[in-house]
């Protein structure tokens, strides 16, 4: 079992504005080993992005607050670090890429400058060394080095995402957090980018936390999977546990039921009824109970804890 790189224990995060308090994360536990790719799956508002942002403490200033829990990275608890120490980790040891490539690059700076910036921040290299590193990274992601003088608006969506990935990996970080990296791209371009990310994972041995709502993407490139609902991880395990095991959390069953199957012809989908819970007043007990077809009396009152098999955990009273 490779060595644990990231270990999130019992993480609680609230968004406090003067009108209301949004309880975004409610006790998240997550473990990621070196060189491993974990898929974090969930619908809008499940708390995927909040989890990612709290690792690097990029939550909106004095509004997104970590109220409880630790985030251990390579032995150190990130939640306790001061801003200066965190800054050294961001971009060098952990880097992050975001969903919409169109707006993630600064329109007025050349692509080369923006990649060089992260190297300047963390590595003490002279100008020539930095330039050659920039060229190397661009070639790595399949973009001709001579285009480093061009501006973001001269690249297509797919190309921009490659630049962003090159930028994130240019300091050879141990962990890359990718928040829905290919959602905004077309299917064919998404395929190209996912292939590239898989190759880079093997070549640079970078651990990756891939956040997405597309179970297909998770199946294709992830080693382990965690499914989030209303700020909690309700099921996690290896890809085999999630895609091939028999027992599943009712929400996971509902998710798979909502996706049209490409192979057989199904007449009607089996969607999950009702709506996502309101994060300002979450239901008692199991947060999924209002929408759960197998809801029992206990589910309404008692919060279920993890039923742990060797690698597969499910947070549901059905599987005591």
């Amino acid at each position, binding site marked *: 079992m490779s060595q644990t790189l990231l270990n999130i224990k019992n993480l609680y995060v609230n968004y406090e504005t003067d009108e209301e308090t949004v309880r975004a994360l409610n006790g998240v536990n997550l473990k990621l080993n070196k060189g491993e790719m974990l898929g974090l799956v969930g619908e809008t508002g499940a708390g995927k992005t909040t989890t990612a942002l709290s690792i690097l403490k*990029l939550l909106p200033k004095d509004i997104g607050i970590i109220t409880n829990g630790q985030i251990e990275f390579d032995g150190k608890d990130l939640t306790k670090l001061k801003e200066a120490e965190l800054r050294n980790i*961001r971009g060098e040891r952990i880097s992050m890429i975001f969903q919409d490539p169109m707006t993630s*690059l600064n329109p007025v700076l050349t692509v080369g400058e923006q990649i060089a910036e992260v190297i300047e921040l963390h590595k003490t290299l002279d100008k020539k060394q930095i330039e050659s590193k920039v060229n190397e990274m661009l070639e790595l992601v399949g973009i001709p080095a001579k285009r480093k003088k061009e501006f973001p608006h001269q690249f297509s969506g797919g190309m921009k995402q490659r630049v*962003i990935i090159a930028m994130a990996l240019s300091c050879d970080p141990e962990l890359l957090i990718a928040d829905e990296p290919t959602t905004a791209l077309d299917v064919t371009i998404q395929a190209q980018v996912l292939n590239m990310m898989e190759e880079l994972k093997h070549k640079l041995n970078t651990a990756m936390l891939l956040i997405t709502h597309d179970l297909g993407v998770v199946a294709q490139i992830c080693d382990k999977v965690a499914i989030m609902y209303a700020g909690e991880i309700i099921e996690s395990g290896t890809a085999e546990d999630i895609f091939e095991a028999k027992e599943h959390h009712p929400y996971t069953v509902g998710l798979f039921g909502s996706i049209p199957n490409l192979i057989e012809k199904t007449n009607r989908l089996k969607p999950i009824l009702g709506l996502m819970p309101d994060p300002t007043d979450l239901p008692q007990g199991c947060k999924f109970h209002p929408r759960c077809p197998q809801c029992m009396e206990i589910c309404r009152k008692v919060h279920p804890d993890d039923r742990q098999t060797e690698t597969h955990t499910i947070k549901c009273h059905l599987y005591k």
Partner: protein
Amino acid sequence: MYKYIIKRLMMLIPVILGISFIVFSIISLTPGDPARIILGNHASEEAVENLRQELGLNEPFIKRYISYVGSSIKGDFGSSYRTGKPVFEDIFGKFPLTLKLALFSMLLATALGIPIGIISAVKRYSIIDGASMIFALLMTSMPSFWIGLMLILIFSIKLDIFPVTGVENIKGYVLPTITLASFSMAIITRMTRSTMLEVIRQDYVRTARAKGASTKRIIFKHCIRNALIPVVTVIGINFGILLGGTVITETVFALPGLGTLLVSAIRMKDMPIVMGAVIFLAIAFSIINLLVDLIYAVIDPRVKAQYSR
């Protein structure tokens, strides 16, 4: 790029023709006879009459306009009824003072406006934000002549630091510059603050933070350049207005700028001066707008791409 500049300058011609017609009609179709004004109410009727003849004021309005346009195309903008000197000699006599005043006050307004705007955006809802907003609002809320008078009272009379009038030496420029700058500074501060707030929320700022860049570096390297693009327009427009010479400040500080010349020309119905000055200002205003657009292209590569096609 040059094709674009020439096209923009070509577009200037219809605008100038339009303006010249509007101003020409306002001045000539309204009461008040220039000849009588020049000779005063003592002069006899026939003295006024042959001066009218001399200045060609008796021809119908349209004929005078056409002859005016005809001669101005050839470069002859006529000479002032009052001084008899060619129009642009008077205008260029007064223009350097107004230009200096406009430059100094725009410099001061930008030097103060932008940093305060940035600080109050970065430290939103803090005391600095509140204080700078109140200060900016106060400046726009006070009539400029009131500010001017107060400045003279305090700095010239009581503290005796700056002169009341006259711009022989540089000290004469201080109080008028502060008066003029107060208004544009307020606008620049508010504009910078709102664009900075906009830029701070952009995704690429979040990417920069994820790269481990400090807030200071993000503000200087990423935010300011993007935030300044719309601010440049505001500075351009304000500079154009200042070039028109602010009559009020010039009256209070007894500075013979373009504004005073133009207002007294309007009152005296000195048509050639009014037309010359308005056309000169229109050209200056359009050139400034063109410069603003070119600066746009320098700052924002997306805009440059548009022009070079």
